[in-house]
């Protein structure tokens, strides 16, 4: 029964328990429109979390991705407006590419100067956000100016239903985008040598280089990939909320890191999975969104998230201690 002890199973169990509890407090939780909106809220945080997951498996941490996301999003939208070009594929490619190039800066500093990733990404995050707001601009781009193609794309639903009162609601197709990206990251981590190298490097950097892994390739790969995911998510976010705000995503890094940790990834590297991360993201988003349903004042949101982080990390620490003894 080894699979029972897998952290994904444990997380899924806790998640299920939480869902049942919330459902007991307010059965409205199980209504389709609530579940659909919950899934919708997973998309952006989830895509970013995939990037953070890879970096965390390698033993690093990234706090720069919200800045990269916002920069990629804002620059791309600006470019689309300036050029009048409406193509979605190109726009997303451009956003991802901006994120990728910014990620390369992280990789360069982490690889070349062996500096702690936290410090490096603090620097690049501050730099990119400062550049964006200081040089590119601070004004929001509203719905009336946003590129239509982008909004239309983000509006696509997989299913749409009509409520009794005539309003319609649906499940956004962006969920599929998220699932697709998650599948890609999973495949990369599990079925490519680079992906295995990320785990190896996170487990023991010295041994990884002795075994013959190309450390430079691994570091550039994960930081660039994470940057690209952030850029992509940034643009998708703008399409989904019909707004390009250059001040967006402030403080999001804490939520995303918390979600990845909840998902069972180790901050010391070497451990973590896509499935676990998706469950962690779902847990975080669900708890945040369900406070209203549970008739708890939303001002408690942060406290609840903080307490969940503390409990989850305490349990992990306790388990590691026991294992060591």
């Amino acid at each position, binding site marked *: 029964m080894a699979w029972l002890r897998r952290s994904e199973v444990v997380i899924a169990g806790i998640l299920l328990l939480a869902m049942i509890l919330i459902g007991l407090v307010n059965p409205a939780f199980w209504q389709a429109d609530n579940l659909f909106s919950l899934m919708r809220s997973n998309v952006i945080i989830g895509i970013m979390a995939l990037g953070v997951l890879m970096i965390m498996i390698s033993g690093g941490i990234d706090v720069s991705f919200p800045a990269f996301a916002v920069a990629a999003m804002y620059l791309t939208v600006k470019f689309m407006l300036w050029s009048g070009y409406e193509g979605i594929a190109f726009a997303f490619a451009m956003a991802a590419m901006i994120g990728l190039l910014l990620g390369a800066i992280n990789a360069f500093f982490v690889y070349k100067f062996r500096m702690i990733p936290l410090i490096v990404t603090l620097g690049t995050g501050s730099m990119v956000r400062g550049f964006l707001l200081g040089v590119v601009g601070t004004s929001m781009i509203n719905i009336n100016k946003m590129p239509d193609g982008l909004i239309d794309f983000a509006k696509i639903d997989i299913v749409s239903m009509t409520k009794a009162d005539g309003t319609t609601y649906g499940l956004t197709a962006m969920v599929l985008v998220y699932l697709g990206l998650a599948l890609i990251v999973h495949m990369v981590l599990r*079925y490519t040598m680079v*992906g*295995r190298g990320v785990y*190896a490097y996170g*487990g*023991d950097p*010295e*041994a990884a280089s002795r075994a013959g892994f190309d450390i430079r390739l691994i570091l550039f790969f994960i930081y660039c990939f994470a940057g690209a995911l952030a850029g992509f998510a940034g643009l998708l976010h703008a399409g989904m909320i019909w707004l390009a705000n250059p001040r967006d995503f402030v403080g999001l890094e804490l939520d995303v890191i918390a979600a990845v940790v909840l998902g069972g990834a180790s901050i010391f590297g070497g451990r973590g999975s896509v499935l676990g991360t998706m469950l962690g993201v779902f847990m975080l988003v669900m708890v945040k969104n369900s406070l209203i349903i549970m008739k708890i004042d939303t001002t408690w949101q942060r406290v609840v998230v903080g307490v969940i982080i503390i409990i989850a990390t305490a349990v992990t620490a306790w388990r590691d201690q026991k294992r060591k003894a």
Partner: protein
Amino acid sequence: MTDPFIELRNIRKEFAGVVALDDMSLTVREAEIHCLAGENGSGKSTIIKVMSGVYQPDRGEILIRGQQVPRLNPIASIDHGIQVIYQDFSLFGNLTVAENLAMNVQLREKHRLMNWRRTREIAREAVDRLGVELDLDAEVGHLPTAGKQLVAIARALMSDARLIIMDEPTTALTRREVETLFRIVRDIQSRGIAVLFVSHKMREMLEISETITVMRNGSLVADGPTSEFDEALITRHMTGSDIISEPYVWTPPSGAPQSPRLEVRGLGLKGAYEDVDLTIRPGEIVGLTGLMGSGRTELALSLFGMAPADHGDVKVDGKPVALRTTQEAIAAGIAYVPEDRLSEGLFLTQSIDRNILSTSYEALSPGLTIDKTRAAEMAAETIDTMQIATPTGDKLVKELSGGNQQRVVLGRWLLTDARVLILNGPTVGVDVGSKAEIHRKIRDLAREQGLAVLMISDDVPELVQNCNRLVLMHRGRLVEEFESAGTSEEAIGDKLKAFR
């Protein structure tokens, strides 16, 4: 005799002006079991790194199967069939046995994709080749040390090795595990693969090898068939001298019987040791030896409050003491010098003064602040009495030699009113000259200051020479006691051998 596989000739290697290897030569023949002996710091690990291509020698030549190799880098070394099993095994604790076993092969085949079925096949083959049982799906981090070693050996065999270098492979193994290892090593040999066994444990060398090379201070001092060596000879070559200093003699003082410094009664810790009775009088140096896993280190840690015993009593100078924390142990007058100086004993990037005073800062602060003058005085005094070679106590400890570093660790305890001194491997990694001096210092401390010293070591000659009494530990019990006078190293060695 087989043909030479690798020949190193007159190798010289300097690091920033420090000569690590000088005129070092080593020949390992095909399919032989060869021991490279030398004390810690003699250059063994440097020569390994030359063979594995990590270091390029400044001078000298390397021949593999008679062909000169101009530049040996890590990849070329592996391609030539040289595999090193490092002390830390270089395994990935977070991955499964199967993946660890197959990783090198897959990396060498330069696949971009990970084929899990192939991974299993490779792993299965590796385990079969070695003829051992290993759960391929277990996480390596959860395996015991011996299991990890098997994985490392199996992995090395998978890369068509012609020479497997094992760096101190028996350090963390129990005797039974050592036997399994030796069986495997012989098995490897029978397949035409050479094994270079790097060690400083004489008995094991004599037991397993056919050829021995001894090095000292970065140079070759002796080599030849194992049959030409015995323990005394290897020791002589390794240390450069017979240990001929006076044995330590302790005579019980006449007159009224003194109360013992340290008195241990019925001490036990579940799973580590039990029923330990031990008495050490002022001025006595008692040696404690036993195999790895005998419980000797746990006993020492219990006396220092780091792994508190679950039953039994300890008295210091006749007074019962509780040893639940290190602070309590220190307050009771017990001092401990750890096994691994670098990782457990020293604050490398701090000054000598701070290292010496580290245990005494609270005692040096009558109010809330440190009495700077007294601190400086005490540090200077310790540097003086311990004869630490430094112009100033401001120098960083990492700039000192091994012997001087050990004196810093020892000196720390002169300031805490220590009456019982526990030394775990007091001269590991210390050069020969300093070794004798450290021994003298320990004797002085015992004789002049009346300390009770408990010296734990693998090095039986060291114990016989420096202790007046010796205690043997086996499977968590003190099994035998000898007076050093009239006991030969061989006798104790034979006892130890019998435990295996």
